């Protein structure tokens, strides 16, 4: 070893007289130069071992000038040195020395905006692991919005010959799909629920498909009380009680495009309350299965009239035909503009340009399709081909705006060529 070099073990050296202390911490040199004393302190690769040396040199020596060049970010060292600097303020030109500090740029030096740019390009697992490195990174990851094509929890999934609970989701960018299976609801609550809640917390979700029963739904609701959900399409055909759907629709941001659920066991009053939720009646499309209370479901059409819904807004619901037709007559008797004796009704909206068209199939239990249409266009139904073409362009516009090909097929109800002709009844 050269004579003018000492190792980190020599920290118990006698007090030093130092004219200038140059701290140059990088991979190559790993050294502290003590100008005036003609010594170079060599330390080992771990930067932690540097602290006592510097502290020792700074406290025992008389430093006239300090130059620091720290390429590895070491806050402990930095703060330790500044403390000594401040204590020695009488003899040190603080500002001058401050200017000489050069830090290496690394992840922790990036502003949050650039960190988020990098996180945007990381896989989901990498994001999670980064969040586990420190509290600071966790805060960023927990507040970093991620776009998901879908988040789905399916209570009736299969694992070989047994049913299981499957949580799946697809990150939009980078496009990655994940699946996790849980044997039963208690395993899901223990291991999967927190992940689902995290996804709901950070996610801007295109399709939120919660195919879970009332029990799991209650568990979920209990854990997301103060969460504002972001999704475009909500689906749940397993939970037949409207509480879950109601909670989800009450706690979501504006801009929901589709709502699909099954209010089979729903009380009339609850269903009416559900239909009156802004997220529901402002959606472009609402689909309800097993509607037991059509009069309550028709509340949605009242809301459409109130807010003057846009053309091609759709409400599909499955109900008993005769009860529903009676309910339509009772609720909108004075608004029925056109009626077709063969399963088609037109209801006048407040805007003279708009009508609500209701079509249904000739069965005991059927699907009713309600659509906001142009008031001039019903006359075109006498000419099915023309209607069909104009309708298809509108439909294609809708589908371009929001692709819903994986939804239920109601084509029989919208196929105008199958509609019988009608007559005006003014």
């Amino acid at each position, binding site marked *: 070893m050269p004579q003018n070099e000492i190792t980190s073990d020599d920290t118990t050296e006698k007090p030093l007289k130092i004219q200038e202390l140059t701290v140059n911490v990088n991979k190559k040199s790993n050294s502290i130069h003590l100008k005036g004393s003609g010594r170079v302190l060599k330390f080992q690769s771990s930067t932690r071992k540097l602290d006592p040396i510097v502290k020792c040199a700074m406290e025992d020596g008389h430093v006239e000038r300090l130059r620091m060049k720290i*390429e*590895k*970010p070491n*806050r*402990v060292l*930095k*703060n*330790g040195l*500044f*403390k000594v600097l*401040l204590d020695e303020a009488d003899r040190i030109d603080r500002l001058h020395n401050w200017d000489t500090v050069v830090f*290496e*740029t*690394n*992840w*922790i*030096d*990036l502003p949050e*905006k*650039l960190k988020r*740019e*990098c*996180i*945007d*390009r*990381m*896989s989901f697992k*990498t994001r999670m*692991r*980064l969040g*586990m*490195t*420190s*509290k*600071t*990174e966790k805060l960023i990851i927990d507040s970093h919005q991620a*776009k998901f094509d879908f988040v789905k929890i399916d209570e009736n999934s299969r694992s070989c010959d047994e049913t299981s609970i499957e949580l799946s989701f697809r990150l*939009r*960018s*980078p*496009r990655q799909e994940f699946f996790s299976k849980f044997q039963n609801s208690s395993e899901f609550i223990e291991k999967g629920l927190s992940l689902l809640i995290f996804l709901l917390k950070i996610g801007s979700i295109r399709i939120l498909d919660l195919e879970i029963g009332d029990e799991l739904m209650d568990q979920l609701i209990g854990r997301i009380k103060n969460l504002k959900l972001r999704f475009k399409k909500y689906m749940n055909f397993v939970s037949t009680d409207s509480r879950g759907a109601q909670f989800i629709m009450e706690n979501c941001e504006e801009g929901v495009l589709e709502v699909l659920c099954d209010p089979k066991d729903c009380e009339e009053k609850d269903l009416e309350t559900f239909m009156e939720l802004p997220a529901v009646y402002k959606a472009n499309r609402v689909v309800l299965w097993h509607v037991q209370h059509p009069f309550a479901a028709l509340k949605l059409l009242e809301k459409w009239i109130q807010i003057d819904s846009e053309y091609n807004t759709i409400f599909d619901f499955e109900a008993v035909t005769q009860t529903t037709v009676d309910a339509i007559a009772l609720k909108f008797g004075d608004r029925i503009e056109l009626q077709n004796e063969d399963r088609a009704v037109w209801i006048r909206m407040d805007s003279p340009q708009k009508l609500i068209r209701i079509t249904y199939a000739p069965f005991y239990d059927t699907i009713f399709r309600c659509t906001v249409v142009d008031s001039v266009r019903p006359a075109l139904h006498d000419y099915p081909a023309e209607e069909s073409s104009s309708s298809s362009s509108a439909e294609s516009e809708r589908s371009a705006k929001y692709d819903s090909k994986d939804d239920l097929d109601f084509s029989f109800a919208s196929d105008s060529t199958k509609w019988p002709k009608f007559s005006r009844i003014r």
Partner: protein
Amino acid sequence: MSVENAPVVDVDEAAIPVEKKMYYRFESNDKKEFRVSELAIQQSETLNRLVEAMGYTSEDVENKPAIAIENIDGKTLKLVFQWCEHHKGEAIPVDDGSVPKIVEIPEFDAKLMDIDNGLLFKLIWAADYLNIVQLLNVSCKKVANMAQGKTPAQLRRVYLLPSDEEDEAAKRAAQEAQDPRAREVEEEFEERKRQGGNSFF
């Protein structure tokens, strides 16, 4: 008329006006000078606006002092301009959020970014500051790729992240290093608060 029968016209090449390429001069904060073509500058929204606003002629470019970029050092700026020259004339991607961010790192970019972490992060800073969308894209992707498949402990080493304990120690040290006068004022303020005083003054 067939190709063979077409009349041959002699063209005086010297008579064709050749558009002279303009090269701007930039200077980094460590006084290193770079000459960058006009087309390459278009990759950077910031620099493009700057040179447009300056309205330099070819003579101005030669005679006036180099445009100083004070936030970026020569090493980083060299990489930035190498990238811009290689990608000059390419369309600048528009990120409106509708398209998933799928980033492929081209071979040239991969070689260019085969550098140490410090320089790579400086490159990100520079790409952001100079508003070079695609360079920011690929450099962030490179940083993201560095983390791929790493455990949290490995990530700490790759990104030189301090652990929570180190962070806490740093905070404590920072508190201790606080200016004694400021500390005195703070202590006095706390003391007055404890005594129930409404105002410090």
